[in-house]
C-alpha cells in the first residue's frame, strides 16, 4: 500500500495543473456550500427571531377553549383564574426571562371614508417590551405608563387610510360581552416591522384604553414568555420545549404553545428554502464530480502503459484500482481542505459583517423572508464536517469508474498503447 500511495501522491504532484484545477472545482463547490448554508441559516435564524420577538414569544399560554377558537380571537376565554398561579410558577423557573400579558381582538379601523379590518393587540406597556421587540419599529412614540386613548397602527394600514402620527382614528370592535363599540383613538405611533401581518392589519392598545373600550376588566387571553436567546437554535428550541412540557404538566387546563407550534408554517418555509438551497448545492457538487471523474480518466488514459508495466510485474487489478482511486481521493481531500478553509474565511465575513439584504434583494426580502437590514451568517460546524466528508466521498465515487476501468485494461493492450 505504501508504494501505491507513493505513486498516487507523486502523480498528483507531477500533474500540478490538472490536480489544482480539479481541487479548485471541489473547493469551489465546498466554499459555495458553506457560504450558502451559512447565509440560509442566517436568514432562517432572522426569520425565526423576528417571529419570536414580534408575535409568538418563546411560549404563548392560553386556555384550551381559547386555543380551539383562536382564529376568532374570543375575549371570553381569559386566563383570569389561573393567572396568579401561572405567573408565580413562571417566575420560579430560572429559564424564563420575562412574562407579559396580552389580549387580542378583531375590529375595524375607520377614517370615516374607508373601513379596514384589523387585528388588535392589547398590551401591557410596562412588560411588553421585555418580551416583544415592537418599540424600535415604531415611528412616533411607543406607549408610556400613563397612556390613555392612544393607538399604534401598522405602517401599511396608515398608508391605506391616509393617516399618520397625531391623527385621530375610529376603532370598531365587539366587547367582551359581544356588544358593538366604537371609539376614537389618537395615533401615537406607526409601526413597520418585518412581520407583514402587523404592518397590514395590526393595531395596538394598552390595557388602560382597552378596559374601557372592550369591557375587558383586565381580562388576559394570553401570557407570553421570553427566554434567553441562544446562538444555537436547536439548543434554544430544546430548552423552550422543556419549559413548555413542564408548564403544560402543571396546568393541564391551559394550552402551552411554543414558537415552533405557532410558527409551524414559518418552520416549513424554512425547510422549503433549505431544499431549494440544497438543489443549487447539488448542482455544484455534480460539477465537482465531473471534474474529478475527468481528472482520474485523464490520468488513466495518460498512464495506460504504466498500468501495463505494473500488471506485467504482477500487480493485481485491485491494487491498480486502489492506485487510481487514491489519486481521486487525495485530489478530493486537497480540494475539500482548500474549500473548507475558503468557506471558513468567507463565513468569518458573513458572520461579522453580514449581507445587506435590502440592497441584495430589495423589498422581496421583507415580503417573503420577513427580513430587513443585514443578514448575518451562522457557524454550522456539523454542516461543515458533513460537507468536508462529502467532498472526499464524492471524489471517491467519481474515481470509482475510471479506476475500475484502469484495473480491467488488458496487459498486452496497455503495453502496446502509444
Amino acid at each position, binding site marked *: 500500500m505504501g508504494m501505491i500511495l507513493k*505513486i498516487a501522491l507523486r502523480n498528483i504532484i507531477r500533474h500540478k495543473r490538472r490536480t489544482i484545477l480539479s481541487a479548485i472545482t471541489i473547493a469551489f463547490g465546498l466554499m459555495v456550500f458553506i457560504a450558502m448554508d451559512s447565509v440560509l441559516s442566517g436568514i432562517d435564524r432572522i426569520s425565526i427571531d423576528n417571529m419570536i420577538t414580534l408575535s409568538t414569544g418563546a411560549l404563548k399560554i392560553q386556555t384550551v377553549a381559547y386555543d380551539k377558537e383562536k382564529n376568532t380571537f374570543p375575549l371570553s376565554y381569559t386566563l383570569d383564574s389561573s393567572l396568579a398561579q401561572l405567573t408565580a410558577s413562571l417566575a420560579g423557573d430560572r429559564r424564563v426571562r420575562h412574562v407579559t400579558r396580552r389580549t387580542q381582538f378583531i375590529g375595524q379601523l375607520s377614517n370615516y371614508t374607508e373601513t379596514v379590518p384589523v387585528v388588535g393587540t392589547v398590551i401591557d406597556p410596562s412588560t411588553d417590551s421585555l418580551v416583544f421587540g415592537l418599540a424600535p419599529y415604531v415611528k412616533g412614540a411607543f406607549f408610556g405608563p400613563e397612556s390613555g386613548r392612544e393607538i399604534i397602527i401598522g405602517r401599511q394600514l396608515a398608508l391605506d387610510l391616509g393617516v399618520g402620527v397625531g391623527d385621530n382614528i375610529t376603532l370598531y370592535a365587539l366587547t367582551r360581552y359581544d356588544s358593538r363599540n366604537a371609539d376614537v383613538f389618537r395615533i401615537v405611533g406607526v409601526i413597520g416591522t418585518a412581520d407583514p401581518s402587523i404592518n397590514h392589519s395590526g393595531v395596538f392598545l394598552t390595557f388602560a384604553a382597552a378596559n374601557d373600550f372592550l369591557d375587558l376588566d383586565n381580562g388576559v387571553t394570553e401570557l407570553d414568555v421570553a427566554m434567553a436567546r441562544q446562538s444555537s437554535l436547536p439548543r434554544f428550541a430544546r430548552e423552550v420545549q422543556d419549559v413548555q412540557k413542564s408548564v403544560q404538566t402543571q396546568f393541564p387546563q391551559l394550552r402551552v404553545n411554543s414558537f415552533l407550534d405557532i410558527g409551524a408554517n414559518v418552520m416549513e418555509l424554512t425547510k422549503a428554502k433549505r431544499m431549494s438551497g440544497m438543489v443549487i448545492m447539488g448542482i455544484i457538487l455534480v460539477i465537482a464530480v465531473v471534474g474529478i471523474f475527468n481528472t482520474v480518466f485523464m490520468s488513466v488514459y495518460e498512464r495506460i502503459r504504466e498500468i501495463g508495466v505494473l500488471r506485467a510485474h504482477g500487480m493485481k487489478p485491485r491494487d491498480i484500482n486502489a492506485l487510481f482511486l487514491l489519486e481521486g481521493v487525495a485530489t478530493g481531500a486537497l480540494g475539500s481542505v482548500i474549500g473548507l478553509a475558503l468557506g471558513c474565511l468567507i463565513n468569518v465575513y458573513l458572520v461579522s459583517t453580514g449581507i445587506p439584504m435590502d440592497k441584495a434583494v430589495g423589498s422581496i426580502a421583507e415580503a417573503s423572508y420577513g427580513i430587513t437590514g443585514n443578514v448575518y451568517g451562522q457557524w454550522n460546524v456539523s454542516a461543515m464536517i458533513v460537507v468536508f466528508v462529502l467532498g472526499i466521498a464524492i471524489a471517491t465515487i467519481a474515481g470509482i469508474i475510471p479506476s475500475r476501468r484502469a484495473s480491467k485494461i488488458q496487459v498486452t493492450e496497455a503495453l502496446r498503447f502509444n
Partner: protein
Amino acid sequence: MPLLDIKNVKKEYRKGDKSVTALSGVNLAIDKGEFLSIVGPSGSGKSTLLNIVGCLDTPTSGSVLYNGRELGGLSEQQLSDYRRDNIAFIFQSYNLIPVLTVRENVELPLVIERKYSKSEMAQKALAVIESVGLGGMADRLPRELSGGQEQRVAIARALVKDPLVVLADEPTANLDSATAEDVITIMQTMNSKRVTTFVFSTHDLRMERHAKRIVTLRDGAIEKDERRQ
C-alpha cells in the same frame, strides 16, 4: 524437463470481422539458463510468443508448461501471481515509472512480491543497481537519465527479484551501438552468473550475435531453431 515447454500454441486475433493468425502451432522447449533470441520480420509473431510465455496473453489453443505445470486455465489472479513469482520483463521503451526514483523503480517488483522488509528491499535494489553500473544514481528520477541508463534500470528492475526467466521485447532497439553493447554485456553477465534464463525478441544483429540459441519465426511458425556454442 524443460523450464518452459510451449506445445502447439496457436494465437488468433480478431481484427474487425477478420481473424488474424499470429501464431500457428508453435512448439518450443526452453531450458534453464538459456540466452535465447527470437528473431523474425515484423508481424512474424515474436511479441505474441513472448506475451504468451510471460502469461500476459493466453493462447487460442495449445499449452504452455512452466516446470511441468500447465498455465492454461489459470485465473487472472493466478496469472498475476505466476508473473510476480517467476518472470521479469524488459521493454523496448524501458517503461520506468516516471514518479519513482531509480531505487524505487527497482524495488517495485519486490514491493509487489511482499516478501521482504523495507531495508532488505533497499539493500537488494542498491546491489543490483550497482551491478548494472548505476551506483550513485539511485536517487535520480527517470527523466534525469539517458536512454541507456534507463534501460539499465529496467534490467535492474527485472533482475532484482532473481527471476527464473527474463523476457525482453526488443531491449536494445532504442539504444545507440555502444550503449546496446553495454546492455547486452550486462544481460550476458547476469545470464552466466545467476543462471537466469533470458528470452528476447530482437531485430538487432548485435544481440543475435550474442545469443546462444536463435529461434527464427516467420508467419507465426518457427522457421529455424539453431543453437550455438
